[in-house]
């Protein structure tokens, strides 16, 4: 079960500041709701967890991240993440290419192209919600990323940004809340369309 996600998020900082944060794998993980880096094996290999709650049931994915490419010239990062849910019922993997595109002196875009694969129970049961839920996850992520960038902004050369205090407690990803967000957005889109169709 594969899903392609291609999204672009505007960021309120200079491109090189955003790039600095993007290269900090632990910092990036902190922006992903429910995620945590548990071990740094070397500069390109990490172990981490992502927790997802669906009502009373939790899935806790345990896996590895491999940073495949870091190209400062084009501010592009490519990483591959793979994990299984600790109950053994599901597996997931993601191939992500992220880059920073400068817009102007003070803003840029965080552009992500990813292919996410699910297997096991998550694929069988979650498949139908995967696209919209993944979109919601990316929205949250980009909001966290932007907030973190804002916090870094006022002072700081890139070096200081890396010495940020430890990531906040990784709260599990609440999937039901995401599903509600999907439904809410869809309803909003519907009423938006209706408004547009009203004769002037």
């Amino acid at each position, binding site marked *: 079960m594969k899903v392609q996600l291609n999204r672009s998020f505007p960021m309120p900082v200079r491109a090189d500041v955003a790039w600095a944060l993007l290269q900090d794998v632990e910092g990036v993980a902190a922006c992903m709701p429910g995620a945590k880096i548990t071990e740094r094996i070397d500069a390109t290999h990490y172990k981490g967890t992502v927790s997802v709650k669906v009502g009373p049931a939790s899935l806790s994915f345990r896996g590895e991240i491999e940073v495949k490419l870091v190209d400062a010239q084009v501010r592009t990062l490519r990483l591959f993440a793979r994990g299984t849910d*600790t*109950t053994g019922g599901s597996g997931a993997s993601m191939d992500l290419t992220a880059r920073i595109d400068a817009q102007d002196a003070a803003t840029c875009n965080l552009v992500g192209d990813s292919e996410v694969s699910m*297997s096991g129970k998550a*694929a*069988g049961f979650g*498949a139908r919600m995967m696209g919209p839920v993944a979109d919601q996850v990316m929205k949250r992520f980009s909001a966290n990323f932007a907030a973190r960038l804002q916090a870094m902004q006022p002072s700081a050369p890139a070096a200081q940004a890396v010495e940020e205090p430890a990531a906040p407690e990784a709260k599990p990803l609440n999937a039901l809340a995401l599903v509600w967000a999907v439904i809410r957005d869809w309803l909003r889109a519907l009423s938006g369309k209706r408004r547009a169709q009203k004769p002037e």
Partner: protein
Amino acid sequence: MGDQSELKDREDKLQGMGTSLLRKEDARFIRGQGSYIDDIKLPGMLFGAIVRSPYAHARIKSIDKTKALACPGVAAVLTADDLKPVNLHWMPTLGGDVQAVLADKKVCFQYQEVAMVLATDRFAAYDGAALVEVDYEELPAIVDPKLSMAPGAPIIREDIQDKKEVGHGPRMHPNHIFTWEAGDKAAADAAFKSAPITVREEILNPRVHPCPLETCGCVASFNKATGYLTVYMTSQAPHLVRTVLAMLSGIAESKIRVVGGDIGGGFGNKVPVYPGYVVAIVASIVTGVPVKWIESRIDNISTTGFARDYHCVGELAADKDGRIKGLRFTALADHGAFNSHVSATKLPAGLFSICTGSYAIPNAYARVDAVYTNKAPGGVAYRCSLRVTEAIYLIERMMDVLAQEVGVDKAEIRRRNFVQAEQFPYTTSFGWTLDSGNYHAALDKVLKAVDYEGLRREQAAKRADPNCPTLMGIGISTFTEIVGAGPTKVCDILGVGLFDSCEIRVHPTGGVIARLGTMSQGQGHATTYAQIIATELGLPASDIVVEEGDTDKAPYGAGTWGSRSTPVSGAATAMAARKIKDKAKKIAAHLLEVAEGDLEWEIDRFKVKGNPGQAKTMKEICMVSHTGNLPAGMEQGLNAVSYYDPPNLTFPFGAYVCVVDVDKFTGETKVRRFYALDDCGTRINPMIIEGQIHGGLTEAFAVAMGQQIPFDESGNHLGNSLMDYFLPTAVETPAWETDHTVTPCPHHPLGAKGVAESPHVGGIPCFSNAVIDAFSHLGVRHMDMPHSAYRVWKKLDALGLNKR
């Protein structure tokens, strides 16, 4: 007069063959007092929960049990390594292959068994299973059987990759299982070359699952002190399983007892020996306590015997009047990752060669290529009589395709090709001898009952009306199927012949107990076998107890599947009863001081010819047979056992008509009428037959109209729970109209043929033909099942029929 009513009274008291005796087993089922596997509680019993693979194809790098073992209540965690010392990490299958009991180094289908956790209660077992950490390395999966034999395809079965054959002839590729052929290819090819009309169609029988209400499971109990193994198991064939267990475990077969109690539906899903059973048995042997393993619904749909998955090409060659001169049917069979379904050693593609159906086809050729894919193992299941559903679906669909090509009515094309009544016994081009039948009479009766001409007129009128909101379709299915496996010279499983048995003991006061080698999963055996004995012996059916399923008590048999109980064990019952009757006649002659030739049998007694006052009832003889007042040299008792090796299979047939109205805008199909005429020879209990027909038709409706087991490209199951899998309820299920003709089977002692699978075999093509017929005036010749509203809507949309 008085005589007649007295005779009728005595007959009614027996409630023997032909009466709609209410089922004896229903009282306990309705009260919730059946005894199913999950009802069994034994002291000290542990629960087993299976750890399953989330990937369809992967290497196992490591398994870490520490967290699971630390979980409260968990007693042990078994993996393949724990089974190696007893050489049970692999087991032989009923299909001549081997199957992993617990995955050793690699998994080949999603949800494959990797480990079993044993705990003191079922919740602790599931918690423990969630804590077993397995490290997988994912491999590319093969999901499309057409790609299984592609050059460079990933090898699924590395364990047999060097083997040149897996039980059924030479293999051409590591993912190839066997190729089976029948008939005369040269003759068929010649017929096609010279025929003015040929049709060809690609027809899919999608993968579906019987989904019985009760899932599979067992309670295994090994007694270390006595060395005796007892296994309570959801098995349709307890004796075969006992033999297999003896071969696998090394325990003497006389020290193994398999018990099939009440089973909540089998439909072929409960024939194979599943890894869960084997691990539970090993666990019990190792721990010395009973071990229970029972599946969840998702386990059952995802991993146990599925049905069909035949990708077929049907070809017919005919003259200009539509008389068939040649048939070529080929199938690519997706067996999943292991060839595990029940398979007679000489017939790996089951009875697919019945695909000439009810028709006299002079030149025929069939071929099945079976391959492995990364899906659950199986193939033969779901009321299919061993691939007969696949075969009959193909021929009945092709008859409609041929009719459309030739421009002949779909009922008429069948009449032109039927085996004529006077041609029986008729040997088909594949070598099956159809012993009896009357296809014209059956079809005529059905067409008259539904006013076929009127329906075709109505359809024409609706087609001419552009404002009609529905498409009307009429489906016909005139099937002959093949059941009652089978003669030992043709059919055996792992060498054991498919005969069956009945042992009858008559008590002094006239009660009877009969034990048989078949195994009811709801077919009503406790009632029907009693009726056979009641008529044969003249003792009331209410006093006759029928037992099956306990291998310690019942005589050897091959179990119940493929509609074989009535043809084989029903025959054995009659034969055993007749042995007793013969002995009773001798006793009666002795008591009445006449010669045997002077006696005649009347309902429940022997009467002296010409002297009606002189008679002895069977009831009296029961008591006398336990005394010394017997002919010289005769032993006491009225007991007999019969092991019956049938001379041939049986060929029940039928004619079905289905009328549907397809909504042009939603694709929803309403079944307006379904008329089913079945001929199963002599009818033992008409009410039970009707119940079987209703059940088979409902399952046919499910398969044709909504069931499927889809996979994505990585081998993930999509739709393996009742959230998606279509089990019809009373809301969707059409009303059934049933009818019958009786053409007794000449080689069966009772003339009976068996009936339970016919409605499924004949029903599926009938629904399919009806839906496709609704579109046939637009040139549509075939649409693959299932005909769910969405799939039919896509066709309507493509044809632009849903525009106002």
